[in-house]
């Protein structure tokens, strides 16, 4: 933890590195976050392997490095809350408790995938878990998520929406149309900007005239905070504050998560826009899983042996998902013509 706080305070603008170090989680919660983040990492590593073997087609965008963001956010999720994100969505589904087997089988395009093999890596949904995709058009999920929040307010069900986008998407015009209406109508939505420093191959500095993305709501009266997105507890604290804001009828809130992806934008990205040292430095100094692990060990929440067992269990879950995803059959050809329209 000491390592992280050093690197974080060095990079952080003095102003608003909020919610820094308050330990707001019980031992059980800490272990749960650790387990969730590690599940995501092992799952994504496996997905990368399967992609390399030709078992996953098309695009495949991995979340490795960013695990603390979605796990910290979901730590605060309430009953009628929903989640919507971009195409970098596997982790969000796992964090919403969707079945790793169903997610992996969708990646391989099989009939037991969450979308029966018809959606693929970028397009998965679960009404039951209130996960609304998985959207392939950069930025489109922000108005959609704003609409989910509109439905929360319309029904007065106390729910809110976590609408995620990246630092690349944040320059899309439709996001500001949504910001305006969300603020005008006081919609309960937390906009989570996952700033992993690169929109595909273009750094934030080369894409954004103002790089402090948490300020992007200023024109609409939406408060924003920058958060250490490599620290699951900082994320959780920020999420609690934002949720309290939304749930008391004050409207939307923006959280800019400073994070990092270790892999390329997608599996086919050679990532020549950054040098290897940059990646290894973040891995070494700020890895969200290593840091939580250090904290768990130093505070004696668990022993090294216990964490090893956790890792072993997760590997088994992921291996089982991968096997399931390969054994599941391709969809029946008749599925080509189903799910286009519902019977009126």
């Amino acid at each position, binding site marked *: 933890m000491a390592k992280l706080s050093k690197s974080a305070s060095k990079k952080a603008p003095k102003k608003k590195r909020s919610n820094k170090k308050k330990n707001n989680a019980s031992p059980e919660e800490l272990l749960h976050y650790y387990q969730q983040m590690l599940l995501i990492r092992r799952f994504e590593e496996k997905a990368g392997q399967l992609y390399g073997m030709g078992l996953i087609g098309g695009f495949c965008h991995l979340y490795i490095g960013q695990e603390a963001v979605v796990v910290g956010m979901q730590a605060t999720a309430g009953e009628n809350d929903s989640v919507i994100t971009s195409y970098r969505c596997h982790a969000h589904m796992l964090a919403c408790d969707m079945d790793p087997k169903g997610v992996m089988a969708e990646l391989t395009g099989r009939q037991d995938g969450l979308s029966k093999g018809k959606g693929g890596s970028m397009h998965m949904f679960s009404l039951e878990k209130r996960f609304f995709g998985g959207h392939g058009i950069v930025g489109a999920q922000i108005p959609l998520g704003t609409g989910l929040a509109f439905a929360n307010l319309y029904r007065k069900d106390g729910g809110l929406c976590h609408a995620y986008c990246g630092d690349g998407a944040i320059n899309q015009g439709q996001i500001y149309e949504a910001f305006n209406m969300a603020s005008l109508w006081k919609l309960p939505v937390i906009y989570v900007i996952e700033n992993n420093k690169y929109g595909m191959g273009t750094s934030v500095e080369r894409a954004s005239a103002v790089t402090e993305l948490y300020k992007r709501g200023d024109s609409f009266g939406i408060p924003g905070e920058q958060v250490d997105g490599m620290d699951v507890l900082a994320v959780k604290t920020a999420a609690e504050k934002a949720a309290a804001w939304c749930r008391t009828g004050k409207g939307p809130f923006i959280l800019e998560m400073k994070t990092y992806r270790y892999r390329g934008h997608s599996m086919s990205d050679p990532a020549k826009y950054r040098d290897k040292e940059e990646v290894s430095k973040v891995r070494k100094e700020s890895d969200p899983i290593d840091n939580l692990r250090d904290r768990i060990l130093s505070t004696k929440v668990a022993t090294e042996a216990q964490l090893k067992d956790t890792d072993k269990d997760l590997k088994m879950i992921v291996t089982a998902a991968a096997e399931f995803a390969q054994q599941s059959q391709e969809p029946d050809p008749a599925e080509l013509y189903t799910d*286009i329209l519902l019977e009126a």
Partner: protein
Amino acid sequence: MAIQILMPALSPTMTEGKLAKWVKDEGDAVESGDVIAEIETDKATMEFEAVDDGVLGKILVAEGTDGVAVNTPIAIVLEDGEDISAADSIAVAPGAEPAPETTPELTAKAAPVTQLSASNPDSPQPMEYKGATTALTIREALRDAMAEEMRRDETVFLMGEEVAEYQGAYKVSQGLLEEFGAERVIDTPITEHGFAGIGVGAAFGGLRPIVEFMTFNFAMQAIDHIINSAAKTLYMSGGQMGAPIVFRGTNGAASRVAAQHSQCYGAWYAQIPGLKVIAPWSGADAKGLLKAAIRDPNPVIFLENEILYGQSFDVPDDVDFVIPIGKARIERPGSDVTITAFSLMVGIALQAAEQLATEGINAEVINLRTLRPLDTGAIVDSVEKTNRIVTVEEGWPTCGIGAEIGAMLMAQAFDYLDAPVARVAGKDVPMPYAANLEALALPKAEDIVEAAKAVCYG
């Protein structure tokens, strides 16, 4: 010299209006810029200002008069020093001609319309509605459809530009704010892309939004959400969730609004799997199909027509009157040639059919009503009878609805065709502004008559 004041045209499609109120009395002095009267158009009540200085000499059309044609003299302004006799002399002089009808007369005389939702969904022509009807304008029929469905289902709400406090840019949502309140009738900022996305998100969240576009021309800003977010999600989610939403608004040319406000999107949206596309013509169509669209669990594109808004039809009173989506209607039975049309063009096609009748050709006019799914069975049945077809649409010909019908008939009715499929469509140009050029760009009854004769006589 006394000056005649004429009934003004206060909107692109206005042909007549109501003289709601005289603000000045006879004998009052008026200056340029003074409000002299209030005129109620089909869309709003507007203040009418003097453009000349003088004295209001004579009022020719009394306050409260309805149906005053554009360009009818309504008052005389006297210049300084003139007396009322100058007004008398001009008042008896022949007034300016009323504005030429830009809109052909399209009231539904061709057919005793209206059908009830088919009890047997397979029957080609659904049962005709036999209940009570009321003469309503299309805009009233659309409003009633929304109001009835909002009473029936509290998850139905309306959002769009000027739909609430302004009562609708075209007065279609008149009275809805009052009845349903600001939580269900929602004015949006001018951000089509954004509010279309919010609407789709609300549909994901279990509501049934009606999203009004002031015109479908502006929906091009929103077309990504209509297609990528609304139409494809059911498929992409393996059937788990879709978007029950209606996108509605005016489509096609109105009158003299030129290229960017005059496009027909029928063929565009009809190409998209996952959408239903409706283009109503009559009042029964407007009400029965909009109700069906709102009840439908899929995303529905509902293409209205500004020129039709003010036209009156007999509309079924029954709140359960719903027209099945995907069924065409024969508006005029005939034996010699089939004419297919949708929206405003159904009226033009009926005019053409009357003209053809005088020349011994008995045309069958099919109102397509729904463009996706297209009622191919109704078209094929008709062609099996007539062996000839003319397709009519206001939009461009290339890859249009007529092209689709032509290809469909090649596959399904080739042996029944005695002549090539003829297409009457908008000209393959952006819509011009000049009145004469605009008229040239749009399909006319004569074009249909000519095409029908060509397929009948070779």
